[in-house]
């Protein structure tokens, strides 16, 4: 078999090695690149940007450590933007093992931007039930979260004294790694009309687009690129932007292998005929 025809059957270990080298090299070399801003991310940015100071934004942590590389940069960028605009943040979540990760992010950004717990942001923590929790928050938050994640009664926290249900929340931003975002749309957006934007992993973004198109979502941050775009919009480069050269290189390598595979395929087919 000619070496060109062998292109059709490259051992997958060479592919793995190629991906490892091509993805790690830009990260080790510290390369940077600019990103163009896409409409879904721009819409998310504008939805937050347009809120008057003092508006309450609820952030839902619906991911855990396994998707932290994609989801955490989104969370940090959104929190930075919200705090820049003097918005109030309520953090909660439906993934119990994701809350520590989300809390780390919130504490990091709040400390960086000199925000005070109880005045500028509150962490409600986790309660089991997903759909039941979402529906009950629409009646009274204290029915589900009588206290914050440390057990402090909500009524003693200045920020949430007058926050009772979705009527008092202007926007929900869900940072998602599973299909919890669909629960938010079905149980909250449809029932209570709360405006929401989602930050999803790249794999889930294609299925979330239909909700964006129908207007059920006001914005969508998809994958690491979406996180990079948001970092660019808030002018605070982070892991999102740092990962773009590596992601570009990885995609290019996959395309190269596909082309090589097709060359090998056509050569082998020609040889057969």
């Amino acid at each position, binding site marked *: 078999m000619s070496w060109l025809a062998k292109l059709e059957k490259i051992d997958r270990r060479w592919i793995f090695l190629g991906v490892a080298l091509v993805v790690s090299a830009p990260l080790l070399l510290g390369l940077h690149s600019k990103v163009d801003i896409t409409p879904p991310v721009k819409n998310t940015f504008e939805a937050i940007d347009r809120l008057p100071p003092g508006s309450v934004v609820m952030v839902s942590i619906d991911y855990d450590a*396994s998707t932290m590389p994609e989801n955490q940069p989104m969370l940090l960028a959104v929190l930075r933007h919200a705090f820049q605009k003097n918005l109030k943040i309520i953090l909660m979540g439906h993934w119990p093992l994701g809350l520590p990760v989300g809390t780390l992010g919130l504490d990091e950004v709040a400390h960086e931007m000199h925000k005070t717990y109880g005045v500028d942001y509150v962490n409600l923590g986790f309660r089991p039930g997903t759909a039941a929790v979402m529906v009950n928050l629409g009646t009274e938050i204290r029915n589900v979260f009588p206290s914050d994640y440390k057990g402090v009664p909500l009524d003693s926290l200045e920020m949430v004294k*007058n926050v009772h249900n979705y009527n008092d929340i202007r926007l929900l931003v869900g940072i998602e790694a599973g299909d919890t975002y669909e629960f938010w749309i079905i149980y909250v957006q449809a029932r209570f009309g709360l405006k929401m934007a989602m930050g999803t*992993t790249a794999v889930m973004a294609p299925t979330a687009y239909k909700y964006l198109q129908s207007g059920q979502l006001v914005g969508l941050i998809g994958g690491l690129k979406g996180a990079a775009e948001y970092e660019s919009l808030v002018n605070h480069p982070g892991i999102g932007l740092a990962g773009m050269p590596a992601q570009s290189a990885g995609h290019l390598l996959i395309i190269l292998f596909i082309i090589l595979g097709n060359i090998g395929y056509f050569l082998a087919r020609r040889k057969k005929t």
Partner: protein
Amino acid sequence: MRKQGTFQGLRALLLFVLLAFLAPPSSAALSPPEDIKAFDSPNDAGGSATVTWKASPQDSLLLGYSVKRSAKPEGPYEEAGVVLKGQEEFQDAGLTDGQAYYYRVDARVLGDSALSAVAGPAVPSAQWFNLGRVNILAFIMLFAGIVLWYIARAKKGAKLFIRRIAGLDAVEEAVGRSTEMGRPLMFIPGLLSIDDVTTLAALTILGRVARKAAEYDTPVLVPCTDPLVMTTAQEIVKQSYSEAGRPDAYREGNISYLTYDQFGYAAGCDGIMLREKPGAVFLQGYFYAESLILAETGHSIGAIQIAGTTAVDQLPFFVTACDYTLIGEEMYAASSYLTREPIMLGTLKGEDLIKLLIALSLTVGVVLETLGKHWIQVLFQ
């Protein structure tokens, strides 16, 4: 003397200008919200009243609105809640059914407020039927009616055509291949629990696969991520072996619980694949990110793979890595397709007719919307 008078005049003018800008607007200048309405919150379990209003003309200058509630129109009023400017609705919960409530919505600025007219009485009560869901009920009745009609036709002996589903036709081939190779079958029922319809569909397919495997005397390995799914799968496989006349060949240990953790489960399944080297792998159920990890490992051991999922975002991975993929509803059709029972086929036909009706209404809806007629949109709201 003239210079002093001029200076005093200028000072008075400056003071007046400063006061005009810094002093809060007086009550006479601040307009309250208009058209206040208070009524029982519709379609709920009671205990709630809804207050709506038209925003104050000076909405952009306000801090927000204070919604006040009283049992009597003359007061005294207590604050029911506060909403930010721009909002025109407030839902007051935790009320007593049957009691009348009166509301006022006051426009607020720093140190001042403009009182609105009183609205009411709003008498909270529970409704027996959620009128907002009438269209859903109508759809369910239509769907059930069509399905029952097809079932009745099937019972009378009508021939119902179902197209070929390659993935389901390949089940026998897959089982036969494993038997020839002397390798077991592996069935992965997805990540969700028994309460999910997709898992039930997967277990239905497991029943058929296990029956075939029992006939060929091929072991079936079923690693589970949920204990309820594990116990159900054990019963199903046991029953299948009994029906095939091979109850002695059933091994409970082949259907086991691994872990609830997504990637721990994927790692466990991969380990089983690499050690046991099954001849066929069935990936049926609801999957998340681990789908490609499972499918690629299955491919690497040379197994024939038949996948089926309703997780739309995982379908591309299965289509890429597996030999056959049941896309979405093809999974739900599996039991009807494999048994060819007329009653089961009847439900499939009913489903198809509804799909056709939906496609027609979509087409009509697009045409009407393009022409600026919105009534069909209202019908579906």
